[in-house]
């Protein structure tokens, strides 16, 4: 790897300064403030605040709605990750076989990634709206009554589809690139040796895709935990009866709508800890099994 050598001692710091400033102002400072606020109980205007130690955290884990939010988040993030990665892998394998139309398929499949998450959420809200949506109309003809503002399972299905839809494009791009990096000669050699397509997939393609898959696993998990906020906000707003109230959405609801800043700060600290642990686990244990 080529390393850049700087003669001037100050220049590297000056070049890094903007990025460091952004990281400090937009990440480290708010995180520290959230940490501090999680130990306080204060009114919305900041006129009275008292130090209450770990009480906000203790309250969280006694609260059945917080435990419900944890469960909902687990179900949601696992489903979104599996659905997004699974479907995009299938699509990438299908496009890999094409020669001439690969470009047009790729363009069409990448297009949803350009749509802002809030707009994607709104799109799916319209399609699935019980009163004016197309899908409930079609489902009604088959005899299924779709009303995600009443049925918790249906609203979970809706947000999983809406959240995964966007991420499929991203995963697809990486999988296509990953598949192209696999030398065709290996697959041909296996075919000559008598391995069927399924065998080739599991013994050659997937192991060689492992670095890409691992990277996408980390990215998808973080996406499902954090970046799905706009999708939830535009479609179900955490409802009905908190059936889609994922952890990051609960932080917003308790902090900005409920104006309970102490509890909201505690929740965001817990969420940050969860993601840190998850990422460490992924890098320590799963990366070992990835062959580069």
């Amino acid at each position, binding site marked *: 790897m080529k390393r850049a050598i700087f003669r001037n001692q100050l220049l590297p710091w000056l070049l890094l300064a903007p990025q460091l400033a952004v990281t400090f102002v937009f990440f480290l400072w708010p995180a520290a403030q959230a940490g501090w606020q999680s130990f306080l*109980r204060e009114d919305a*205007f*900041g*006129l009275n605040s008292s130090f209450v130690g770990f009480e906000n955290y203790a309250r969280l884990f006694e609260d059945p709605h917080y435990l419900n939010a944890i469960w909902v988040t687990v179900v949601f993030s696992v489903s979104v990750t599996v659905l997004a990665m699974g479907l995009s892998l299938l699509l990438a394998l299908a496009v890999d076989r094409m020669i001439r139309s690969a470009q047009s398929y790729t363009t069409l499949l990448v297009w949803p990634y350009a749509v802002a998450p809030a707009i994607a959420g709104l799109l799916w809200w319209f399609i699935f*709206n019980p*009163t004016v949506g197309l899908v409930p109309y079609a489902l009604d003809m088959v005899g299924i009554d779709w009303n995600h503002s*009443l049925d918790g399972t249906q609203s979970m299905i809706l947000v999983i589809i809406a959240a995964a839809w966007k991420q499929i494009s991203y995963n697809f791009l990486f999988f296509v690139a990953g598949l192209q990096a696999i030398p065709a000669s290996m697959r041909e050699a296996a075919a000559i040796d008598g391995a069927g397509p399924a065998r080739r997939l599991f013994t050659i393609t997937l192991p060689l895709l492992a670095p890409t898959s691992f990277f996408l696993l980390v990215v998808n998990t973080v996406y499902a935990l954090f970046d799905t906020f706009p999708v939830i906000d535009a479609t179900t707003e955490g409802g*009905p009866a908190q059936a889609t109230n994922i952890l990051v959405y609960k932080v917003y609801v308790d902090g900005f709508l409920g104006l309970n800043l102490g509890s909201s700060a505690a929740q965001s600290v817990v969420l940050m800890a969860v993601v840190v642990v998850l990422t460490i686990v992924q890098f320590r244990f799963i990366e070992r099994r990835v062959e580069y």
Partner: protein
Amino acid sequence: MKSTGLAAGFAAGISILAMSPAFAVTEVAWWHAMGGELGQKLEAIAADYNSKQTEYKVVPSFKGTYPETMTAAIAAFRAKEQPAIVQVFEVGTGTMMAAKGAVYPVYQLMKDAGEPFDQAAFLPAVVGYYTDTDGNMLSMPFNSSTPILYYNKDVFEKAGLDRNTPPKTWEEVEAFSKKIMESGAAKCGFTTGWISWIQLENFSAWHNQPIGTLENGFGGLATELTVNGPLQARHWANLARWQKEGLFQYGGPVGGNDAPPKFYTQECAIYMNSSASRAGVVANAKDFEVGYGMLPHYADTQPQNSIIGGATLWVMAGRPEAEYKAVANFFTYLSSPEVQAQWHQGTGYLPITQAAWDLSKSQGYYDANPGADVSIKQMTLNAPTANSKGLRFGSYVQIRGIIDEEFQALLAGQKDAQTALDDLVKRGNVLIREFEAANK
């Protein structure tokens, strides 16, 4: 060094030039949550005020939804960048009132600025909501609404009902809905927006039932919810039963945004929502004639009066003295009969002063627009009692969310009406106790 001196002189010159316009006009920031058509009408009011005099200038800014506007004002206060005037919805009253260092009560403001301010000129139901225990008004009423009933006259006629008679009791709502569905005139009987505001809070006030102890929270922070009484349980059980039978269709949480399309497309024949929805109804219900009526009540109770929704204007503390004179002057203008009458007629919000109501009457507005005064009549049907003055609880934005959740659980069949209301009260009281502790 020479260039630095020149630069300094240059900067000083520019800043002196920039300063001079500030001496002429006192600017006052007004943060509000009125978008679309309502926002245009609000900006017209500010523009009219600004054009009529040269001392003060009101600068409105649209900040988003009611919760967003309130959050923005609170965050701005913490950063010492608060606006002079902020429009806060009725649900935020508890929070604003408890913030004693952050708000400048309106009665105090008007007295200090020497502006005439007669509380008796306002409609009692409006005044009652925003006064403290000593009877002093804390915020300036601006856009107040109350829920009423809209119905589809054509569907009524098709179903064999009298097109000029809205249902007056819940028993009639059930009977009319059954007849409408059986005759095939519409797919469902009725729908409603705002389950929390209309079908629980206003329902309680309309039937003179308490929502909480200590005069629905007006008496102090130690209040508790009592909205799980037998009448409310009976009503919620009925709603769940009617939803199963298809007579009632749920419009969604918070404002119930799925409800208006059901009415406009003639899927449901009866529709309960804010009087300020009138603008939307008139614009969208084009294929049929709309009738207006008061909220239904159970036949064994006499109706009391309904409570208001909407928002008021709060003045934030910590601004320069000159701005408060401007705010007081602007408030006098805002509550003048002409301005209020025009705002009421253009939007469907209530005329908050008796004079504005009388002016609209003398202009013949209600003769030309039948049903436009149902809301006022309903709100002033009787003098408010302790149960129907309004409500004032801390953390009420979250409690509204709890009400929606428990109602959804009820409709999904997860619990019965009494249990849903009991759980609602239990969860709400936890939040009220936390608010009390944080604001002692």
